[in-house]
């Protein structure tokens, strides 16, 4: 009977029930869409610069990240034990070292990046950034240079660059490599100072056979936190430093945190609007029903039963609102995950300059929907507590006089 009464009461004032349910739907749709876009943008950003270039996790010999010297190299076989780790999808060994590059009269400091181009994850990235020439192979000697460096050095494909550097433990490193191709690494800074070569060439150049300075870890399904934890238990931390992207790129982490806080602020405003609009209807409803509740108490209905009916009404409406909201928003979010929003015009340029793709795919993380749905649901219930207080204080004679 209580459910029947609740159900009929919802249908009695259709307009208000529709308003209530729609505002719940709107709140769910808006908050889930916004959060999904935000998280999607972060995920994409991470995939772009972190996932490909930097890696979510890097392992170095202790102290390398601070000093960046070739002396802090490690033997590749020392990390062989990680190959069996189920949280890791791939390990790319790299050499990162400084050198002086010369061509004719021009000399510039550069970063030599030694990679293994036959590894698919590395290969794809170079191929994507290659703007002219051909890319590295395991057989040919040669290098790829950033397009900024090409301009500065005034060098063409087929010309050679001479490198000079300090090698392993104080030795002198020198070499001459022909330019195979030009790459656009998206950020001007990287373009101006990056030279990419075979890992083998780099090992020869710096005199560190079988060694590398960094191991880029590709976590399974991008679940880097899980991989990091697992690696930390596996490796000796007195010998290796295991760094995640947040430690390597604190600025990016900060940027995301600031943006997320901005989003939270917008959501708080949305929640407040929802609270007030719901409160408005609840207030009206409570005033209107006061008389009726008074009658019910007078003829012998306990307030606890009336409270329960009012609660059922709220529950039904919020559950329906939240579910309808999710039904509306999930296809939208899913669509924009697979067909991301393309930024255009100035936005596109700005974003690309920073090395990001100019698209925002939405995140499909189910926790976004779950959290937002729960928050909206709780607000609805919270607002309706007013009705319960009102019922508790009903005096039938007073209520029926109104």
């Amino acid at each position, binding site marked *: *009977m209580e459910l029947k*009464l609740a159900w009929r009461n919802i*249908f*009695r004032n259709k307009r208000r029930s529709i308003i209530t349910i729609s505002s719940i739907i709107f709140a769910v749709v808006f908050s889930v869409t916004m959060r999904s876009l935000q998280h999607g943008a972060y995920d994409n950003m991470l995939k772009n610069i972190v996932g490909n270039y930097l890696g979510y996790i890097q392992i170095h010999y202790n102290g390398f990240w601070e000093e960046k010297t070739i002396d802090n190299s490690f033997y590749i076989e020392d990390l062989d034990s990680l190959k069996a780790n189920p949280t890791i999808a791939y390990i790319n060994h790299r050499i990162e070292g400084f050198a002086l590059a010369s061509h004719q009269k021009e000399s510039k400091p550069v970063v030599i990046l030694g990679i293994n181009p036959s590894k698919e994850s590395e290969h794809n990235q170079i191929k994507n950034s290659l703007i002219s020439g051909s890319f590295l192979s395991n057989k040919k000697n040669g290098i790829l240079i950033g397009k900024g460096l090409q301009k500065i050095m005034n060098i063409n494909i087929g010309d050679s660059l001479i490198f000079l550097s300090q090698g392993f433990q104080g030795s002198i490193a020198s070499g001459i490599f022909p330019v195979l191709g030009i790459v656009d690494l998206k950020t001007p800074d990287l373009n101006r100072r990056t030279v990419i070569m075979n890992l083998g060439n780099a090992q020869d150049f710096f005199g560190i056979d079988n060694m590398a300075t960094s191991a880029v870890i590709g976590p399974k399904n991008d679940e880097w936190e899980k991989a990091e934890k697992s690696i930390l238990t596996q490796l000796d931390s007195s010998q290796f430093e295991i760094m995640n992207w947040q430690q390597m790129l604190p600025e990016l982490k900060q940027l995301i945190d600031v943006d997320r806080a901005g989003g939270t602020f917008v959501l708080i405003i949305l929640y407040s609007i929802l609270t007030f609009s719901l409160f408005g209807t609840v207030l009206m409803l409570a005033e209107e029903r006061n008389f009726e509740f008074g009658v019910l108490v*007078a*003829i012998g209905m306990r307030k*606890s039963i009336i409270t329960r009916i009012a609660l059922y009404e709220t529950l039904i409406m919020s559950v329906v609102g939240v579910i309808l909201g999710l039904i509306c928003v999930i296809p939208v979010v899913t669509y924009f995950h697979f067909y991301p929003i393309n930024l255009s015009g100035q936005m596109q340029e700005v974003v690309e300059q920073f090395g990001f793709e100019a698209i925002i795919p939405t995140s499909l993380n189910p926790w976004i929907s779950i959290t937002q749905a729960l928050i909206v649901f709780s607000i609805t219930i919270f607002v309706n507590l007013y009705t319960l207080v009102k019922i508790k204080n009903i005096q039938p*004679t007073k209520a*029926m006089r109104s």
Partner: protein
Amino acid sequence: MITIKNIRKTYQSGDIEVQALQDISLTIKPGEFTAIVGPSGSGKTTLLNIIGGLDSPTKGSVKINETDITQLPENELIDFRLHHIGFIFQSYNLIPVLTAKENVEFLMLLQKKNEQARNERTLKLLKAVGLEDQIHKRPNEMSGGQQQRVAVARALASKPSFILADEPTANLDSKSSENLLNIMQRLNREEKTTFIFSTHDQRVIDKANRIITIEDGKIISDTSQ
């Protein structure tokens, strides 16, 4: 049996004290069909509310079959009303989302009567008030007179010891009033239910077998006819 002893009711409105009832004592025996009459503001509603446990007196006691309802805690008082007192209101006050049948059945549901008993009594009462062909209508689909007859059936449904009706005919035309009073009178005899009602209407007063007149919160006459 209702025994009211030395009831006083003082309302405080602002700085002014209103003496709505002044020292009223009264006994009402089972089966009575009693009218409470008096000019506007004389205290009829206040008295009925206090007898029905909807309002508490400033002083005095209201005993219904040995229970002093002025001493009952809230929930017990509500339960007491459910089981012992029927109410008929001037503005009908049916539950708008329920049909005539459901409105009558409602209190029996609260009393946890079984379905068969509920159905039997509901149909019997709706028949008694002449609405057997309206049982699935909602209040807003019925005339005032019809709604008030549903209200009478509802008040009787819980088998209360007595029924309180504050100006039950005030919103009805004279024909509906007469009709309602006849029904109440018949049910008073058939169901042996006590009726106490307040009224301004002389034709209604004529049907009562006891007339209590109050003025300024005091009983000025109490006659049986």
